[in-house]
């Protein structure tokens, strides 16, 4: 019974959604994103292969390719060839 309960808890815990945008850099060089969150405009550098968690409550980012995209705050983003792929 204990096993069953712990399995259920584990299931629920794993199924809980992660709720801030996660950016993964798939390129071989570091990517610099301009993140506008709230009042501030800041630059976030993500090293090659690195992952960063940004803006839990919605923001705008400018990718190295020059595209601007708005994020709700629950997306998973990959940087491929300097441009963002939202999953």
């Amino acid at each position, binding site marked *: 019974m204990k096993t069953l309960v712990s*399995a259920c808890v584990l299931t629920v815990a794993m199924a809980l959604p992660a709720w801030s945008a996660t950016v993964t850099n798939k390129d071989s060089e570091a990517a610099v994103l301009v993140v506008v969150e709230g009042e501030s405009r800041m630059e976030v550098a993500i090293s090659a292969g690195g992952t960063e968690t940004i803006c839990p409550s*919605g923001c*705008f980012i400018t990718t190295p390719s020059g595209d601007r995209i708005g994020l709700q705050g629950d997306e998973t983003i990959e940087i491929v060839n300097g441009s963002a792929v939202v999953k």
Partner: protein
Amino acid sequence: MMSKFFAAFLCLSMFAASVPVMAQQPAVKAAPQPVAEVASPQAQAAEQLEAARKNLARLTDQIKNAKDDDGRLAELKVEVDAAAKQIIATSVATRPRLDEIKARLAELGDPPAEGAPPEADVVAQERKRLLAERGEINALTGTAEDLSIQATKLSNGITATRRALFSNALLKHTDINGSIVMDAMAALTLELRASTRTVGSWLTFAWNFKRLQLLSALFLSLCAALVLLAGTRKLFFPLIHRELLSEEPGYITRLSVAFWSTMVPTAAMAVFAATSYFFLQAFKVLRPDIAPLISITLAVCVALLFVSTLSNAVLAPKQSVWRLVRVSDGGARLLALSIFAMAVVNGLDYLAGTVSEVMGSPVVLTVVKSLIATIIIGIILMAMSLIKPIVPAGDTLDGQGKPWPRAVSLLFVFSGIVLILAALSGYVGLARFIATQIVMTGAILVTMYIGMLTGKAVAKQNALADTIVGRYLEKRFGLEQVALDQTGLAAGLGIYVLVVLFFIPLILLQWGFQIADIEAWAYRIFTDINIGSIKISIVGILAGILLFAGGYVVTRWFQRWLDGNVMARSRVDTGVRNSVKTGIGYLGIGLAGLIGISAAGFDLSNLALVAGALSLGVGFGLQNIVSNFVSGLILLVERPFKVGDWVVTGTTEGFVKRISVRATEIETFQRQTIMVPNSLFINASVGNWTHKNKLGRSDIPVTVSYDSAPRQVMDTLLQIAAAHPLVLKNPEPQAVFTAFGEATMTFELRVYLADIVNGNGVRNDLRLAIYERFKDEGLGAPFPKEVLEPEPLPPGPQADALAQQAEAAGPGGVASPAEETFKRSGTQRRPRRVTVDAVGDD
């Protein structure tokens, strides 16, 4: 856990009212959708952004206009935050188009390098067009970005303004000197004249031109209040009535009477105030200059009633048996009086402040009025330290009391001095705030505390049964002890929820928070709680649970309907019926679970990971459970036995009662219930006496001496078998000469029965008949002469019982001693073998 759930549920139902307001915004946004379908996503987004820009400009204006109005600012902040969210949503909507463009551009490839052959004109043009569109979208997103920054700035600006407003109100310093007092005096005469004129003119106007409306508004609100008062009095009578008792009532009774006798009249008064204001407003009797006066008067009345009923409830100056705190009669009277006086002074201060505001009197007047009010409150506080309310243990309450303990009286003096000093040194706002906190927040906290105590006391085991309410419920509805206890628990939890939901917002309002703030918080608490990077929505989880419960109920209902109406009438085999029913049950609950989980906001795609983790778990700990579960499913499909069958597996034998997920319930002949794991039925061989039909063979061994004629014995046995009504004619009974013993011959009578479950009874009848016929016909005893050595039984009650039984039964019983044990111990090794002996030996 339970109380939390209740709290959540109640909050949900309370704030359900505010949800539609918020739900309106998307609806408004969705309205222009059909028109916009023709327009490109960019045009649509541009339109929305333009609307957002206008909205922000409007909000900025409104914020400028309302920079002194804290309540309005709080509402505006909610709007600004919603606008910021809307802006982000707008730009998110352009993302798919951008992705499409990027994908198409990637397909087209880079423009040809210098010197390379030029590409087709179509391609170049398309690339140009796509790039232009990409630029357009980026520009749009840039605009959205700017707007979003602007909205956030606006929102933060509001917060800063509100903070400044609050500290200004509290820490505003005015020099107090003689000239100010003189100015105030002069202003006071003017204000008095102005207010008399205003109120008088309004009254004349209302009486002459709006008489009907005025009277009907008052009449309607009085009706509402009376209905409420009469209803609550009838409903809560035992809770709020203080009987004249000679002896002290129970603690819970006193607590709950104190709590409810404060709450009920205050609520009635609040309803009266709210409805009369509403009706006066609705009938257009109020004028803009009179409305604030009326509203503050009504509010002060409610607050006064609250404080005075509370002090009366706690101190009960006239009925010492109902007093909650142990103070002397004189002390209680003086305390109640001074608390009431403080409340009156504080209320008048607010009333006078509003009058000055409405009449546009100089600020000094308000300052001087508040100064006087706070000084009076300070003096009352200091005077309270002189009251002698303490009653030494053992003394009666009507005697002369002792003074306060030193710490308490020092506290009174100290707070009085602080109030007066703060007011005199010019911090009138602060002093007034502290005075209000002492009176109102103090009263609210005391009520809350009493409410909590009541809840706790009512929730105690069997506490409710001893109270007036408990006795009333018992008499009126005939509730049992257990039901009363459960009612008490529910009532206790309900009181907790009520206290928390009602008083915490009240205290927050006292501290200068606005209703819009509290609503926004509550909304956020129920829709998204952020823990680290995880967002939890209580409403979502509750919705998930509700959906699951709904799905469960529907499944059960469908199961019952299918089983009772469809399958019962189409004469489906019970085994199939059971299987279908159980299968539908699993399916329905699984579906309801899935729906519930997705409604609760859990991401099922993450379950892939969980499945990986689980498969490891299955490998180790869950192996048995899963194997039993799967075996259960196989049992349902293959149906080697159904409910009601007589089965034998391993050491277990009996009737199948229920086939469930993990195990099958078997009831032995002695009514012992055994849970057999389903995998046992799949992995081991299972015997089923009643699989296809209930036909079965039952054997009775008979031993006679060599004096008898074997043919005659066999004929007699067959005659006996044929005479029994339950023995089948076809297949016909057989009598077989099975063995030569040293002194006896062994025969066996084999009979077929339509229902093998009756085997025991039939064998018993046959043995009796055999004994009687053999004795009559002198065939010799149908059993060996020498006493058989019984098989060694393990010593214990069973062996003893067997011996006794054998003794009591006499010679007849010895025919097959083992047969007797069969009846008693279906699960023992011996009887099972006997069954095999008796039936299966061929």
